């Protein structure tokens, strides 16, 4: 098994190389390509660390959705670029940023190297607690997310909604209630439409499968929701669909559904099973899947809205 360390070294050097390229690229396009490539490579690293759930999330959110977010921002900045002269940050500022980033990285590295062996960890406690709550799930990560630290997970979804509201509030007052600008202005080329038409249904199926299988195998609500969001964005980018008006009922219901169902289940747990967010042991798995289904809906609605941006006035 002496091949494994060599492979690891090659992989790690590749990741560092792409990171250096991303930081030192001169133009926006090159650095965003580097960033997306970096995110896809990190999925490898997570697989090497035996964390397929994290690998999927990293690829979906860290590289996919965030990449499209950066690209959309780049497009809108590009439109502005011609309007105002560019002010580059000074050399001292760049030096300060580099020094601070290096300090944070070395502090993290030092902490990891100085950990006692075996390192202290909440993992056994979390796994035991998740089992004890009668979750009965085969995937310990889902059990921890939805049972041991369910309050955290619900609050994260609420933060997502707050982010969407924040993005919407950046739009002009007059534009409130209208739809965000389409993700592509011109008519798309036929292969792009074909790709979107073929990819979106297959991708939606895969996303729902990943959500469903997350109860017993790597996967889960967040990964499924992020992939579903990616598929909606594919259709929007190929002009098969347009971003909806932000005052549409179904959009707002979809956004709120996840945390709302989660909260109601938590409160019901106080009545039925004796503690806030406790699940009755025999019904734990169905309840968790039920909550996760709505969470998938909310995530799939929220992430594309974050990418689509604030509402804008359009000639129509």
């Amino acid at each position, binding site marked *: 098994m002496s091949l494994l360390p060599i492979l690891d070294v090659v992989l790690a050097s590749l990741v560092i190389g792409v990171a250096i390229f991303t930081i030192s690229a001169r133009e926006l396009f090159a650095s965003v390509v580097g960033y997306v490539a970096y995110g896809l490579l990190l999925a490898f690293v997570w697989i090497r660390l035996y964390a397929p759930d994290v690998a999927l999330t990293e690829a979906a959110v860290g590289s996919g959705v965030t990449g499209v977010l950066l690209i959309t921002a780049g497009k809108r900045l590009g439109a502005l670029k011609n309007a105002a002269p560019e002010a580059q940050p000074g050399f001292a500022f760049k030096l300060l940023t580099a020094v601070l980033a290096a300090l944070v990285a070395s502090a993290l590295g030092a902490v990891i190297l100085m950990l006692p062996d075996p390192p202290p960890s909440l993992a056994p406690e979390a796994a035991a607690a998740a089992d004890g709550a009668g979750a009965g799930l085969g995937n310990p990560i889902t059990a921890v997310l939805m049972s041991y630290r369910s309050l955290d997970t619900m609050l994260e979804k609420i933060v997502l909604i707050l982010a969407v509201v924040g993005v919407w509030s950046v739009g002009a007052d007059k534009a409130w209630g209208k739809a965000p600008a389409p993700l592509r202005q011109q008519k798309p*080329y036929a*292969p*792009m439409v*074909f*790709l979107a038409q*073929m*990819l979106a249904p*297959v991708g939606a199926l895969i996303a729902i499968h990943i959500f469903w299988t997350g109860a017993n195998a790597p996967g889960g609500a967040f990964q499924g929701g992020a992939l579903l969001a990616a598929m909606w964005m594919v259709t929007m980018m190929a002009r098969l669909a347009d971003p909806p008006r932000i005052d549409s009922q179904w959009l707002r219901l979809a956004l709120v559904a996840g945390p709302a169902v989660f909260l109601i289940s938590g409160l019901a747990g106080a009545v039925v099973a004796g503690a806030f967010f406790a699940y009755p042991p025999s019904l734990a798995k169905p309840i968790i899947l039920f909550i996760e289904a709505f969470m998938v809906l909310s995530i799939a609605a929220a992430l594309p809205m974050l990418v689509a941006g604030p509402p804008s006035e359009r000639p129509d």
Partner: protein
Amino acid sequence: MITLLDLFSIAAISAGTFFFFAGTVGLLRFPDSLTRLHALTKADNLGLGLVALGLIPRADGALSALKLIVIWVLVLLSGGSTSQLIGRALRRGRK
């Protein structure tokens, strides 16, 4: 003991790796963006297909084996379409 299935796996994966090698050589040595694109998409897709084929005997369960084939078909579909898009951008003289 090397079984027949193992032999098949080794053969397919070696062939796949060879095609990746060919694709990378094409990427490095071809003179033009369009030809490099061709080398990349065609050879690498075939390489991935052979690797996926070679891993099928080692999959645990029919569903995993099926997913390997779906991965290949999905990459073929998206690779074919995106190379058309990239080719158009190259023809339009985007830099």
